[in-house]
């Protein structure tokens, strides 16, 4: 009996260990591959930094006509502006939902709101994109202005997509607080609103911020839904009603049409590398915030 348990213990241990090892190796392999492919623009094509960090995108022009220009600044700007604005819309909404679910009406929250939020998270992004394309874009064109394909449409679609991430992370953070915190506040004579504003939200700050950063990271990586509504015009937008392009949509639109090893293709890999670096930055941020939260 004991022997069997020991054997099982060992088997379980080695299985978990090898799976973890595979995961680590895969991540390392992806990082190495992206680094190698992404830096080929510098090592093989000898593209200068001023060329790659410009706004001029003519990867197909011959040298005689002023090309090839592979500036990716337009794409980086598009990604940063869309995701930041989406988080600015989504974060207050998500935190409010979380407070409602965890503090104001836990019963309604658990029975009704939580499944709704989970449902939102489960809808495939192409569906969001299609709804955006056939409902949101005409709505903006007819009621607000512009052609409809715009930064605004991208922000709205993204905001809905990252809402579940922020809301559920914030709910968990609030629910994880010890009940004594709130009880003490109420015992001191605080109203419910005062307890939420001055005690609960500040105490759950680290967890809420983590949710926001995760939402931001998700917004950065989203490709399909955004691509369908932002117009993909390779220009820096001048207003919220102008079309623009993001890193992800630039990559998905051109990747299949370019030849491996060409400057154009390698520039797309460089854009993917930038996405990877950005998401590392976000993970680093999450770690930092998580460590701060552990003080409690």
């Amino acid at each position, binding site marked *: 009996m004991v022997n069997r348990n020991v054997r099982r213990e060992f088997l379980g241990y080695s299985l978990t260990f090898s799976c973890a090892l595979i995961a680590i190796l895969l991540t390392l392999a992806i990082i190495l591959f992206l680094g190698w492919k992404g830096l080929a623009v510098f090592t093989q094509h000898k593209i200068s930094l001023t060329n790659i960090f410009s706004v001029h995108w003519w990867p197909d022009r011959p040298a005689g006509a002023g090309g090839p220009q592979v500036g990716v600044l337009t794409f980086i700007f598009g990604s940063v502006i869309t995701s930041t604005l989406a988080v600015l819309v989504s974060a207050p909404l998500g935190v409010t939902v979380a407070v409602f679910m965890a503090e104001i009406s836990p019963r309604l929250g658990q029975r009704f709101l939580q499944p709704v939020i989970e449902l939102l998270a489960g809808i495939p992004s192409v569906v969001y994109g299609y709804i955006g394309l*056939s409902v949101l874009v005409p709505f903006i064109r007819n009621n607000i202005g512009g052609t409809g394909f715009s930064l605004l449409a991208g922000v709205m679609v993204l905001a809905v997509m990252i809402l579940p991430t922020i809301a559920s992370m914030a709910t968990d953070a609030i629910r994880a607080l010890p009940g004594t915190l709130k009880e003490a506040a109420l015992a001191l004579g605080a109203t419910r609103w005062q307890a939420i504003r001055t005690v609960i939200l500040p105490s759950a700050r680290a967890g809420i911020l983590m949710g926001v950063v995760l939402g931001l990271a998700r917004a950065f990586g989203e490709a399909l839904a955004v*691509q369908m509504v932002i117009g993909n015009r390779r220009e820096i937008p001048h207003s919220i009603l102008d*079309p623009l392009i993001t890193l992800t949509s630039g990559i998905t*639109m051109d990747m299949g049409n370019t030849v*491996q090893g060409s400057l154009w293709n390698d520039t797309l890999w460089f854009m993917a590398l930038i996405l990877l670096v950005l998401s590392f930055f976000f993970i680093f941020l999450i770690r930092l915030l998580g460590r701060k939260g552990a003080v409690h």
Partner: protein
Amino acid sequence: MLPKKGWFGVIFLILAVSLALTAGCGQKSGTGGGPQGEGKLTGTIVVAGSTAMQPVIEEAAKRFMESNPGVQITVQGGGSGTGLSQVSQGACDIGMSDIFAEEKAGIDAGQLKDHKVLVQAFALVTHPEVGVDNLTKQQIQDIFTGKITNWKEVGGRNQKIFLVNRAKGSGTRATFHQYVMDGKEEAKGDVEQESSGTVYQIVSQTPGAVSYLAIAYLNGKVKPVKINGAAPTEEDISTGKYPFWAFGHLYTKGEPSKVVKAFIDFVLSDEVQNGLIREMKYFPVKGMKVERKP
């Protein structure tokens, strides 16, 4: 929650799936034929490339495998650029492309063998209410270079033109650029999209919109426009009146192996040319009276 034995099944499944995924197009394919003798074909063929050709080649592959059970054909999309570079590197046996290999920068066309298997027609399409039935090539060029910005300048309604470009470098756009624009550079336009489905959706719902689509995507909600009075029909294309079409190419690296050749011959057979290819709104390659060179 799973019963104890279930875990092993799950882990095995995950490993199996990840192995299968990493195999992908890069796998070494059998060259087929060989000692089995005449009549019995065996081997695997991996086809990759143009998403425009993918549905018809997929269907042809299915029929080919039904009559040759020893042959396994995998058809993947990925785009013309992917098809050409994969076949050059030997990562797949057949590369599908909408354009000549010579026209794609970075491809050594000398080592590839071209098999033209079908003709694909494209149509200029507009939102149904712009009020234009026919445009000259010159008018189309003026619209897409941004010189003309209102439909009334070409005889339509007083409506701003909404330009939908295809992704730079896509096979469809390359064909448009070469045979309709005569090489003139397109304006940035209002919107750029890659997928034909999205282009269809945008043109059908956006007032004043204009773009171009493979005729398989034509449907009541967008209006095809004649070019110089000619329509994307087999007659106008084969006599050279209608310019907006492209060959569908299957490229092999050097001479095809026996099993690959058998498959390409099957695609070129009357059965597929006059059956499947017509059914799926492409045109057979044999009726072409105009010659087109890279």
